[in-house]
């Protein structure tokens, strides 16, 4: 059984915001709502600038589901976290609970009236008939029902953003890191525990294995 996840390779992301644009275009997301955004740290610092594309991470134990007072969230068989907009009361609890700031709320009027929550659906639509106009209007396009992956990941020009079954995209990323000889310090051990000292190498088990020479 697939568990749909996103994975963004900070070594590859060039902050082009193409994923943000693709998402807005594919799902016709209203003005002021960004289901996906690109976050950059150390902006302008040569060699230290890193960008990452962030949206709903479709958590295995989603805090938004836990705090929702009307229980409008559900998880599909593929591990995609979705919600029913007809049930959502727009309270904003999910926004406070989400560590990624994924839930978005359309605002309108002079007093910024808050609408119902909107978030990344992994291009899987919502609880309306698949590929129907009602589904598109409320949740956006249902690409999974067309045998496709989310638009943001599929159109990423550098393939920094990967989307799909967690096992498959983790394998892609792992092979990529081994080939380029670095990366585990960017995502994983180094990020979680730090390099130890300036210039320190990751533990032996984290170091890339030498690749066999290729025949030309």
């Amino acid at each position, binding site marked *: 059984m*697939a568990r749909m996840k996103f994975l963004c390779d900070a070594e590859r992301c060039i902050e082009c915001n193409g994923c943000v644009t693709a998402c807005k275009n594919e799902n016709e997301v209203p003005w002021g709502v960004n289901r996906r955004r690109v976050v950059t740290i150390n902006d302008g610092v040569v060699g230290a600038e890193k960008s990452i594309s962030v949206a709903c991470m479709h958590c295995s134990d989603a805090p938004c*589901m*836990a705090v*929702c007072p*009307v*229980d*409008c*969230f*559900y998880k*599909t*068989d*593929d591990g995609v976290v*979705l*919600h*029913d907009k*007809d*049930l959502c009361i727009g309270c904003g609890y999910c926004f406070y609970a989400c560590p990624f700031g994924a839930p978005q709320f359309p605002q309108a009027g002079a007093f910024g009236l808050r609408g119902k929550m909107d978030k990344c659906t992994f291009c*899987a*639509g*919502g*609880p*309306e*008939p*698949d*590929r129907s106009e009602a589904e598109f209007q409320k949740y956006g396009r*249902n*690409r*999974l*029902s*067309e*045998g*496709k*992956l989310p638009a943001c*990941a*599929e159109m990423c020009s550098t*393939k920094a953003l*990967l*989307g*799909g*079954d967690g096992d*498959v*995209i983790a394998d*892609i990323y792992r*092979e*990529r890191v081994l*080939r380029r000889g670095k990366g585990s310090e960017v995502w994983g051990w180094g990020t979680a525990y730090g390099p130890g000292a300036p210039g320190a190498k990751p533990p032996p088990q984290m170091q890339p294995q030498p690749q066999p020479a290729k025949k030309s």
Partner: protein
Amino acid sequence: MRLLLTVAAAALLAVGASACGEKQQVVVYKQGKYQGKPDGRPWDNDSPVAELRGGKWSKGDRTSWEEQIKNRQLAQHEHKRIYQ
């Protein structure tokens, strides 16, 4: 009378000691149940029409849909797509 006092003192001690106990202060979350409308499953749809250029699978067959999605996922892997 003495027995009564002893019993009263023991009871008081027991009540007093119980105040020193520690209560669980962590909220135990009870998972809510989804209250909304049921959703369809992606493999229960027909393969899309040609102009949508989606995948091909048999309607209702989860395995063939997953196979299609897996091929699509591997297309993100440029080492497999370009060098092999």
